[in-house]
């Protein structure tokens, strides 16, 4: 610290384009920089020793007290973004300043007293851009919601396939029909993404979806459940038929390859099958059972089919 | 007749720790310990034979400490009691003191504090 004196430090503290203050354990203000003076029209001498919640009466006291408690107790920095709360601190001279705030635990190295440093960053212009972008994204998202297919693979998306399955479970229970659910997950897919990149990863997903699509049986549906997990359901088939089919597909997937600049990529998958029984209440339960069977396949060494 | 002490706590571990401490305070003296895992069990033991002294936990399944104290009050049984609880809120202490307990100790148990309290109420 020999090169920097207190005056210089204070100068920097006041020139910085971020609001900064320090409060003690009783929430009393100890330090207050010029940014805050400019926006609140209150001087350091006006607020020094005052309680933070008296200086900013509109602050949500209970919520913030809880936050402070967390900061002091766990000595973790806590952040509040403008998306969460656009206007935490209301300034007389601030207009509508969108803020990112941080609450940083600070301990006096000499006295060991506990303080919190509060920083307030004006992010109004950035927030405005982001809000516009958000609107565009929202429109895109609502478009996705009316769509029934997964854009990458072209097969059904999760929402649609789950809705369809829900209906099938209902039908199966009313008319005593056969129904089976199959889930499968690509083995070590994360490594593909890590080693070859996401573009190749996407091609692997597409390859798997295409392979399955080429061998579909009648009265079955196929969808992407999420990530590298896929789901199918079969109406009117015996569990044996579904098992045989799964075995065939498992081999087919493992025998094919996706070419890349680094050479052929081989992939395997772990399968789990669950059969509908009258005790099963809904799609959630039968998916869960298929999932359990699938994870048992993973546990047993992957690239296999397990019946729940 | 020996001095009878009833320990009421749902945790075996807590009872064990307390028994160990009591043993060291009462060595050479004529005393008898009995235990109960909740308020209801304690009530059964008390109805069989009223102990001279009781250590009581507050949060327990089936019947908790508060309920036992209320029940003893309606039965007009006045057993000198020390509450040992993980609940360190002042209000908990206030509540049980209103129900007539002699002392309140916080968990985890501190042997010195048990000794101090027992001296205070003239047990040792």
């Amino acid at each position: 610290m020999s090169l920097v004196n207190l005056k210089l430090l204070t100068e920097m503290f006041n020139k910085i384009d971020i609001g900064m203050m320090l409060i003690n354990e009783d929430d009393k203000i100890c330090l207050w920089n010029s940014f805050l003076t400019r926006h609140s029209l209150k001087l350091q001498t006006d607020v020094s020793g005052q309680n933070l919640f008296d200086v900013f009466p509109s602050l949500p006291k209970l919520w913030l007290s809880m936050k402070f408690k967390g900061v002091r107790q766990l000595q973790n920095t806590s952040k509040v973004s403008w998306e969460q709360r656009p206007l935490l601190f209301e300034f007389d001279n601030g207009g509508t300043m969108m803020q990112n705030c941080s609450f940083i635990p600070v301990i006096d190295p000499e006295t060991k007293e506990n303080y919190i440093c509060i920083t307030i960053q004006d992010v109004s212009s950035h927030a405005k851009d982001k809000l516009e972008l958000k609107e565009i994204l929202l429109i895109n998202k609502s478009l996705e919601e009316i769509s029934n297919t997964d854009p990458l693979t072209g097969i059904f998306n999760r929402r649609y396939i789950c809705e369809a399955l829900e209906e099938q479970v209902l039908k199966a229970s009313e008319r005593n029909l056969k129904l089976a659910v199959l889930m499968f997950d690509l083995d070590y897919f994360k490594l593909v993404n890590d080693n070859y990149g996401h573009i190749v990863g996407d091609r692997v997903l597409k390859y798997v979806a295409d392979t399955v699509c080429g061998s579909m049986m009648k009265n079955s549906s196929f969808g992407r459940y999420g990530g590298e997990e896929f789901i199918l359901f079969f109406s009117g088939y015996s569990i044996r038929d579904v098992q045989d089919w799964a075995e065939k597909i498992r081999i087919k997937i493992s025998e094919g390859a996706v070419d890349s600049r680094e050479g052929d990529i081989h992939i395997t998958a772990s399968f789990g099958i669950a059969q509908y029984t009258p005790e099963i209440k809904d799609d959630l339960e039968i998916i869960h059972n298929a999932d359990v069977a699938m994870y048992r396949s993973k546990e047993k060494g992957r690239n296999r089919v397990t019946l729940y | 007749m020996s001095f009878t002490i009833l320990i009421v706590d749902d945790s075996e571990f807590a009872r064990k720790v307390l028994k160990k401490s009591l043993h060291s305070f009462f060595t050479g003296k004529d005393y008898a310990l009995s235990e109960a895992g909740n308020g209801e069990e304690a009530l059964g033991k008390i109805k069989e034979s009223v102990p001279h002294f009781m250590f009581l936990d507050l949060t327990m399944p089936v019947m908790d400490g508060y309920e036992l104290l209320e029940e003893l009050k309606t039965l007009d049984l006045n057993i000198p009691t020390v509450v040992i609880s993980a609940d360190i809120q002042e209000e908990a202490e206030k509540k049980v003191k209103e129900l007539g307990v002699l002392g309140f100790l916080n968990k985890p148990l501190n042997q010195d504090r048990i000794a101090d309290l027992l001296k205070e109420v003239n047990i040792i």
Partner: protein
Amino acid sequence: MNSIEFSHEEYDLLTELINVSMGKSAAELAKLFNHFVKLKVPALNIESSEVLPETIIKSSLFGELEKVIVIQQKFHNDYSLKGEGAIILNYKTRQTILPLLELTEDDIGSEEINDFLLELSGQLISSCLSNLLMEFFKSPTTFESPAITSKEENLRQVAYKSFEFGYQQYGDILYSKIDFIIDVVNFQCDLFFFIDTESLSHLQKILQKILEESS
């Protein structure tokens, strides 16, 4: 399917340790609310996360088809502990906190309530755990920020979806359920803790050590 089993004494000790740390947490929270806080005896269990959905449905305060809010928070302590806490509450409970925040019925849609719930959950989970873990580990536990992971679904949907995080990450889990009540306002919620198989065996070793020392 359990690969780890706790003895009766180990369960008992862990329950007691959790009770003690919950007592501290209750006191800390009571100070904040100016109300008496009641934390009910935790139920502790170890089971395969395969049956987690049924367990959550069975042990929750809320009905299977009731719409609930779920807040989850992950934590870890170096390599010795990994897990998460989850708080479940219903919309009626959400409404009961309005007076605590000095809000009225008109503010029911307010973001402030969600913010508050996040903070409260974070406090509950971290204060309970840090009090407990202080007994076990020398290094501080890291808590990620809590997030609302569901607010449109019913308990059944939530329970089955929780499986997806459960099984993939945890295998066998220790789960502990705690009911948390703020007197006067009758705030009620479920608090579940999950820790993974590996953490379980670390925990067991520590419990065994304490038991040995106390005998």
